């Protein structure tokens, strides 16, 4: 089973791009499973189900969705295998720019959009900087030169990635992207594999549910700004 992790900022076009890729893969009679991770709510699972692919959704609630992701993804890979999927795709929103779901030796895709501002590529952490494929969406809204400038800013922070412009609505470029999905890592299990980058060591009282403000309530790994 080929497995890929797809992540990116909210509303960057992850679901749209995955849907366009699904259409192209289905045209080649492939069986596809999607695992959708989100924090509070998502309707993306309905969109995937409409395409007739297998869907599983996980809501992390009070946890960082990427921490939640890594605690659950191995079981999901098992689920995909049991169901004889040819492809398993995970979608997770990068809500915290510091965490990233990307796993070593698993094809990692980051979706980012042209409207997010030229400094955004610099601000996103390992989710973008360690991805193998960077998909840039919403190029239909801006001029060619602006697309190039944006892509060059992405290239600067991840010079080794394959960078592709995809239109999440019309699917322009999705065919080409699908050929890269066909080359994605073929796996049996995630056991023994490692994240590409450690997740932040946030273990302070607030992680554990504290709401009160003041020094006396702050325990664990607390860091202070310079005055």
């Amino acid at each position: 089973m080929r497995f890929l992790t797809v992540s990116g900022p909210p509303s960057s076009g992850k679901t749209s791009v995955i849907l366009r890729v699904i259409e192209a893969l289905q045209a080649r009679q492939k069986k596809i499973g999607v695992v959708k991770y989100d924090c509070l709510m998502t309707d993306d699972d309905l969109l995937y189900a409409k395409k007739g692919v297998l869907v599983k959704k996980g809501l992390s609630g009070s946890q960082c969705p990427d921490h939640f992701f890594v605690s659950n993804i191995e079981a999901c890979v098992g689920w995909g295998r049991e169901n004889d999927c040819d492809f398993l795709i995970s979608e997770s929103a990068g809500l915290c720019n510091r965490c990233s779901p990307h796993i070593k030796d698993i094809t990692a895709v980051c979706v980012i959009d042209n409207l997010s501002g030229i400094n955004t590529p610099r601000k996103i952490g390992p989710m973008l900087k360690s991805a193998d494929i960077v998909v840039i969406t919403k190029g239909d809204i801006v001029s060619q030169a602006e697309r190039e400038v944006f892509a060059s800013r992405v290239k600067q922070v991840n010079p080794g990635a394959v960078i592709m412009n995809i239109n999440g609505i019309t699917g322009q470029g999705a065919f080409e992207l699908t050929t890269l999905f066909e080359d994605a890592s073929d796996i049996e299990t995630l056991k023994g594999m490692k994240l590409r980058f450690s997740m932040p060591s946030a273990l302070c009282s607030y992680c554990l549910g504290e709401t009160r403000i003041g020094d006396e309530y702050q325990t664990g790994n607390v860091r202070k700004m310079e005055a």
Partner: protein
Amino acid sequence: MNYHDLLKIPLAQLLAEYPYLEDFFSSFGLQLQAGDQTLQQYFDALDPDKLLDLGLSREQLGKSLHDFLAGMLSLEDSTEKVESLTIIGGYDKSGTAEALEITLRPGQIICIVGPTGSGKSRLLADIEWVAQGDTPTRRRILINGAVPDGKWRFSTEHKLVAQLSQNMNFVMDLTAEEFVRMHAESRLVTDPEEKVTQILKQANQLAGEQFRSDTPVTSLSGGQSRALMIADMAILSRSPIVLIDEIENAGIDRKKALELLVREEKIILMATHDPILALMGDQRLVIKNGGIARIIHSSDTERKNLAKLEELDNTLLALRNRIRSGDTLEVIIQ
């Protein structure tokens, strides 16, 4: 010069030669200081805690640095010149073979005509992707008569094709000059300032209405944006093939714009229904039902009509200018 040689050069010397290296590090939140230290020494001395805070690992930064330097060095390789582009026919939407082979050469203008949905954009996309029977049309594209190197497909340094697409909007909060400079820098050209001056000057020669270099790109008119994009493409782009997808024609000197691109010895393919542009082309590919149905070579009679069309066009342009200056149109031909 290879990657390992670069690592041994003192930063002062390295930065003088490759000034954009500084921006590479600053995009990761790191500062590179010109001095006696070599790049390797600088890299080895980076504080692991600081890297962790920046969301970086030494391993990943090392890989990025390697990829960046490799890309930078590959710009110095002279790329193989594109002497010809061959389109080998595939199948239309009904599965009928196109059964043709078309070879295009630098300096030629090829127009692509056909109704909406007929497959004009698909043909342009086949060329951009250097299709090898692996797209819905099953067309194949050859460069200099052979299946080209895979590098054309994904490389940003050696892009085969530059595309000028319908949309001319900007969302970036930059002036025309800042924008062009950022674009020039992103291409890692050695003389960005000179390029910026050239592009702004050229754009103003193409635009119907002049604009200043401190005009925000978001307030350029459609014609001014198109002029800026064409000048930018002609002067900055190294790509030997230019694809133009149904560009609107108002507010720009079309003839000068095409001449500028042709002068740069590019192969130009243009999806258009504009009669003047169509007649400026050497040939027209007529697209029907996803396939190239016919090839029309512009005839001498057609070319003679071009002069008439231009006259009509100038008449309309003069009327437009009169409206702009507050004139009435009770008398159309003065």
